[in-house]
């Protein structure tokens, strides 16, 4: 292997690592705030990529059907829980009104938007923003329907629910998008060379977007009240409840953010890879390996783990291409051994 191949593989590894880092951040965020292992993350990769692809080929983004459907379901769940508490207090009219707006009117509004513009001609950034306007509320609704009613359950029960949600969304994905995968347009045709190494514009865009998102996340957690509230919930749930940060509000914020990050990860890989309804799962699992390196708790370690996973994958695809996935996922064994030796037990809560 000469230097130029080494450099190209490194570039590949870091580019993929940047995407895994976004996914790992989202997994750490959701787990530390809600104790849920966010398996449906992979579906959002597919939803994001396929929705942008649909917009670019002038098709109706059919994910909106799912948004409308789950919106109705969410409204019914909220109405049900309000009716059940009617014995103790009057119907929370304002809350229900908001529920109507968020879960019934907003999806219709998005549907209307999808029909009233020519999305094919829009710049890619606008298409991605519109996709986020579909997937982020979807993530919040999924939390509301599937997880919020059992937020106090054990980690294992939450994991099982998570597996269920993953399969349900996978099935919906197949129904909505069909078995065919798609690719999206390239972000840019521009490319350059650093010495002997060709640098693709695509890689530069991926790294820049992922890097600035990580920077924004840092600012969000460090500077804003909502970010601090999420961190507080992760550090001490009881303390957070006592200052009025509701578990469910924090959970919804975490799921909204995670759905957004998953979607963006999907749109970042879609120009280079054919993404189908089920592609996301394996990609998200690699993000999960990275999150495990960070103990599902540390953002910087998770990001470092993501780079490690990306590089490992890239070099093993050169030397032992058939065993690429095996090598990446085997990484989890030494990592778990190392973590169990260095950290004490009993940190379940």
């Amino acid at each position, binding site marked *: 292997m000469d230097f130029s191949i080494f450099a190209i593989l490194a570039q590949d590894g870091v580019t993929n690592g940047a995407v895994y880092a976004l996914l790992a951040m989202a997994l750490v965020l959701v787990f530390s705030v809600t104790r849920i292992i966010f398996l449906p993350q992979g579906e959002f990769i597919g939803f994001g990529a396929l929705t942008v692809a649909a917009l670019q080929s002038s098709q109706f983004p059919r994910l909106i059907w799912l948004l409308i459907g789950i919106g109705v379901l969410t409204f019914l769940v909220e109405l049900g829980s309000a009716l059940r508490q009617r014995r103790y207090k009057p119907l929370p009219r304002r809350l229900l009104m908001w529920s109507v707006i968020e879960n019934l009117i907003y999806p219709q509004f998005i549907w209307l938007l999808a029909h009233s513009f020519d999305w094919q001609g829009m710049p890619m950034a606008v298409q991605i923003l519109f996709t986020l306007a579909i997937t982020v509320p979807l993530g919040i609704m999924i939390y509301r329907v599937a997880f919020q009613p059992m937020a106090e359950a054990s980690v294992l029960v939450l994991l099982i629910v998570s597996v269920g949600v993953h399969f349900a969304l996978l099935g919906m994905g197949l129904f909505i998008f069909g078995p065919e995968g798609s690719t999206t347009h390239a972000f840019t045709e521009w490319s350059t060379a650093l010495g002997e190494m060709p640098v693709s514009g695509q890689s530069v865009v991926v790294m820049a977007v992922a890097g600035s998102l990580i920077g924004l996340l840092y600012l969000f957690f460090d500077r804003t009240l909502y970010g601090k509230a999420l*961190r*507080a919930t992760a550090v001490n749930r009881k303390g957070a409840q*006592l200052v009025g940060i509701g578990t469910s509000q924090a959970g919804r914020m975490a799921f909204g953010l995670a759905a957004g990050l998953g979607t963006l990860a999907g749109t970042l890989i879609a120009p280079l890879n054919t993404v189908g309804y089920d592609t996301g799962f394996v990609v998200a699992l690699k993000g999960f390996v990275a999150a495990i390196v960070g103990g599902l708790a540390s953002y910087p370690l998770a990001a470092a783990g993501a780079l490690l996973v990306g590089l490992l994958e890239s070099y093993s695809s050169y030397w032992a291409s058939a065993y690429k996935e095996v090598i990446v996922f085997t990484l989890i064994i030494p990592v778990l051994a190392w973590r169990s030796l260095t950290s004490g037990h009993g940190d379940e809560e």
Partner: protein
Amino acid sequence: MSADNNSKPVLETRNLSVRYGKVEALRATSISLRAGEIVTVIGPNGAGKSSLLNAIMGALPSEGQAEGEVLYQGQDVSHHAIELRLGKGLALVPEKRELFTTMTVEDNLVLGAYRRRKAGWSYRDGLEGIYAVFPRLKERRHQLAGTMSGGERQMVAIGRALMSDPKVLMLDEPSLGLAPRVMAEVFQVISHLRDTGVATLLIEQNSRAALKVSDYGYVLEVGDVTLEGKASELARNPRVIEAYLGAKH
């Protein structure tokens, strides 16, 4: 005492019971406190004191079940979520403090005002008020809460609760694990709270110190209120002296 006996209680429990599965921790307890009053509940370990506070706040662990009424300014709040009770003016400083240990002192305090959003009020005003009461927290405002001493943590916990602008402050064993000198400091702060019009419900193992700062007291034993009265009278009651104050003097 600033409040006369005819004024309406700001907080009242009526036949409040708490059970964990089949175990009854608190039995039909009725207590009340008025604005500007310090009321203490003393009693041995496991008498249900913490359950009482957690039930009033709505912060019982998920296996705990409360029954009975919690009246805040005459309104039953026993089915409200913690956030709503907090918004109305209840605040709890729990026995374990439950601080955000990996965040700075100032962030802990700011999060205390998470529910407090009013036009023209900024959390900076609130911080100034807290720093006036606890000057040491101002010096250490950029330090991580987890690196503070026991007494300082207790101050952060009380400061965080005060940031929500409570009308009723509930303190669960504020002197637990503190050195006597630090403990005296904490009790001094508690007695100052009376001047701000906040009603304080205090739970203490250190009955002597608690009765000294309080206006009124209840004795809670195995889930029942067995005795109540003015704090000064309780402190002279032979049964109380024997069971809770006796040993040392």
